[in-house]
């Protein structure tokens, strides 16, 4: 009898010890590497985190972002690394779950001791990292286009702000398609914030908002909304529907007798991957606005797409997010080259101000002050399942995290409130 109890006890101890063992061995190795990085010898790699989901609902987009980071860091290392030191990237999968995202950013910063992290694809996951970034004084480079009205001192926003997607797009639509606009979005912070600015821009440019509807996230039935659009007599639909819902939206749109030729859907939230899922039949004739489309006919862009497709043959396609993640890595590398000690986060963040990079979309630049990035404004008409670019701004457009059209009070302070203002970021 005694024997059995001892065995049972031992078994449970072994199990626990093996669990703890995994934890402690990896922390031991991390401690070792941090010990040697203190001496800052030249040969040591600089550790960088890559935090994108490989599983879960946003995995499709985030896989291409991970790929882009791998490609960028491999290229940087092949070209000699950062002042003679290689970059070592550590990828963590947060399974599209914000709580997991908090855990993983902590793991990257506290255990792996990365100097910065490129990552996150949704506002929810980005916001889940903010407390940790501040407490541990680390840096996140966030590549996704976003809704703005948040600037965190420990985040560099490389994706477009809403003004960069809308200020050229909306006047063009009002002049060339029609004045009556119907706003459709997912019931979520991104669409609501973007539409607030869109409404102001529409009114400023002599247009008229004839309806505004929000569908719950993940909605697959757009019949009610399509009927409302029909009744409203709109000339165009301005859409901020996000993710997979778009597939149902475009399908329902046509099936309920709405015609993209007379009333197109003009969106600021679909990429090539979603376009593929929607299919040629339903996407034809609609419009989209993004800083970058993989169909961009420029040498840098073509080279980028070719390189990507050669390196990764896993069914993912190049989108604006891929391009942005790729640029994020290069911007980080440039910033790392400028600082003496990569572990000095404050200096690293300062090094980003005014940093430029020749991205596949063209020359982009991190703003001198507000941590956002100057990116291009482009829009395309969808034809044959591809984005046919009909407009490209001649240079990168200034980011306005608090758009001037809504917040004139921030116009002279780089379009943002003070850094210590509580509305600057959720705290």
């Amino acid at each position, binding site marked *: 009898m005694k024997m059995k109890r001892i065995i049972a006890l031992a078994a449970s101890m072994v199990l626990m010890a093996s669990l703890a063992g995994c934890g402690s061995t990896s922390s031991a190795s991390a401690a070792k590497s941090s010990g040697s990085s203190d001496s800052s010898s030249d040969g040591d790699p600089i550790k960088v985190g890559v935090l994108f989901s490989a599983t879960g609902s946003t995995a499709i987009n985030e896989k291409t972002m991970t790929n882009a980071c791998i490609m960028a860091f491999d290229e940087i290392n092949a070209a000699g690394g950062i002042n003679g030191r290689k970059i070592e990237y550590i990828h963590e999968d947060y399974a599209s779950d*914000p709580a997991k995202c908090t*855990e993983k950013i902590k793991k990257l910063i*506290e*255990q792996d001791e990365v100097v910065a992290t490129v990552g996150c694809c949704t506002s929810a996951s980005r916001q889940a990292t903010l407390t940790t970034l501040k407490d541990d004084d680390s840096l996140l480079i966030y590549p996704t286009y976003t809704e703005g009205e948040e600037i965190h001192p420990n985040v560099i926003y490389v994706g477009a702000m809403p003004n960069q997607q809308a200020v050229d797009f909306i006047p063009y639509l009002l002049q060339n398609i029609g004045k009556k606009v119907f706003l459709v979005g997912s*019931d979520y*912070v991104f669409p*609501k914030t973007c539409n607030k600015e869109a409404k102001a821009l529409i009114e400023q440019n002599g247009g008229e908002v004839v309806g505004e509807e929000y569908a719950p*996230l993940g909605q697959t039935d757009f019949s009610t909304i399509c009927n409302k659009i029909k009744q409203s007599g709109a000339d165009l639909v301005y859409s901020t529907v996000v993710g997979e819902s778009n597939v149902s939206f475009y399908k329902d749109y046509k099936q309920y007798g709405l015609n993209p030729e007379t009333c197109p859907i003009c969106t600021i939230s679909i990429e090539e991957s979603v376009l593929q899922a929607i299919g040629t039949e339903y996407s034809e004739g609609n419009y989209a606005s993004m800083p970058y489309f993989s169909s961009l006919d420029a040498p840098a862009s073509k080279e980028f797409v070719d390189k990507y497709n050669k390196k990764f043959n896993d069914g993912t396609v190049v989108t604006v997010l891929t391009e942005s993640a790729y640029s994020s890595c290069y911007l980080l590398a440039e910033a790392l080259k400028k600082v003496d000690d990569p572990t000095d986060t404050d200096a690293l963040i300062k090094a980003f101000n005014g940093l430029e990079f020749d991205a596949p979309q063209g020359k982009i630049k991190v703003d001198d002050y507000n941590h956002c990035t100057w990116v291009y404004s482009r829009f395309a008409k969808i034809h044959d399942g591809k984005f046919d670019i009909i407009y490209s701004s001649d240079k990168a457009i200034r980011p306005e995290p608090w758009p001037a059209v809504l917040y004139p009070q921030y116009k002279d302070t780089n379009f943002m409130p003070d850094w210590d203002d509580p509305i600057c970021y959720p705290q």
Partner: protein
Amino acid sequence: MKSKLKDFPVNHYIDIALLIFLIFFPLFVKTFRVEMMSRYLCFAIFALSLDLLWGYTGLLSLGHAVLFGMGGYMIGICYQIQNGLPAFMTREGLTQIPWFYIPLKNPIAAAAIGILIPALFAMLLGFFMFSSKIKGVFFTIITLALAQIFSEFIINVQKYTNGFNGLQGVKRFAINGGEQLGKVQYYYIVLAIAVLVFIFCLWLSRSRIGKIATSIRENEARLGFFGYQSSHYKILIYTISGALAGLAGVLYTPATSSITTQDIGVAASTAVVVWIAVGGRGNLTGAVFGALFINWAQSLLSEHFSSYWQLILGGVLLAIIFFIPNGIIGQIIELQRRRTVEGVKIKEQSNANKGAGLWRQIFSR
């Protein structure tokens, strides 16, 4: 004395081993692992609350994360309204903090409300369901629907909850703008509460109420013939379970510093069922062990196999549920029970054989 020791169930040895391990755990690992463990301890409390309901009373709830989420959101909201109106409320056009949020401003009050509301909610729901004799799979389906409705509800009243993005920046019980508790300090507080909850559940399961709960699971009709109002006991257990789930949520949100709709929906509710199924239901140890084991396995696997970890974990879980349906701890208890019975039958057997027998039994199954 010696015979008493012999009767001491094997799972309590595991409890004690686990407790010793958890007490010394922070000495050997980095702070962030300690922080992770405090989250998992909250999950363990959550699993205990469901074990009372499912393991002892036989009511499988697939919406238990709703009660967990109610607790968690109370603390989340508490820290959103500390510095005046939060940005998400301003964006949706609110000009002042809604009146029903004002009592939440004090973290201690928020914690109390975070335990009370899920308890009341469970009581009310239990009252409607159990007094109209809803049982078995229908109870499960209703709770499943509830989980879906609740997370949709939280997403859609974003004016008050920040919708899909959830609530961030939750402090570890910083009171009146003071310093928040240290990470290790908070770990020990959570551990102490977890131990108290465990002892409470143990006491409850051995009390008269616990025995009636077990009888409900085994044969509710017969219990009725004895003159017991089984629905009253079911409501009571559900209420207690709700309070404990709420408590787990209250402790969980500060440990992760955020709560989102992913922590409260169907997926989170089914996860806790899986933990208990793997650990073994109806013996408390299984719930704690399952919660800690699976969460650690998840974290460590995802660190080492970034794309395939869910596949590996899924395979292991399937294997456990398929080959040892009692769960890991349940199986160990079952083996002890069987051996005691055998031991009475065949008294003379060499010790060495006995020792090896346990393993043979584990592997021969």
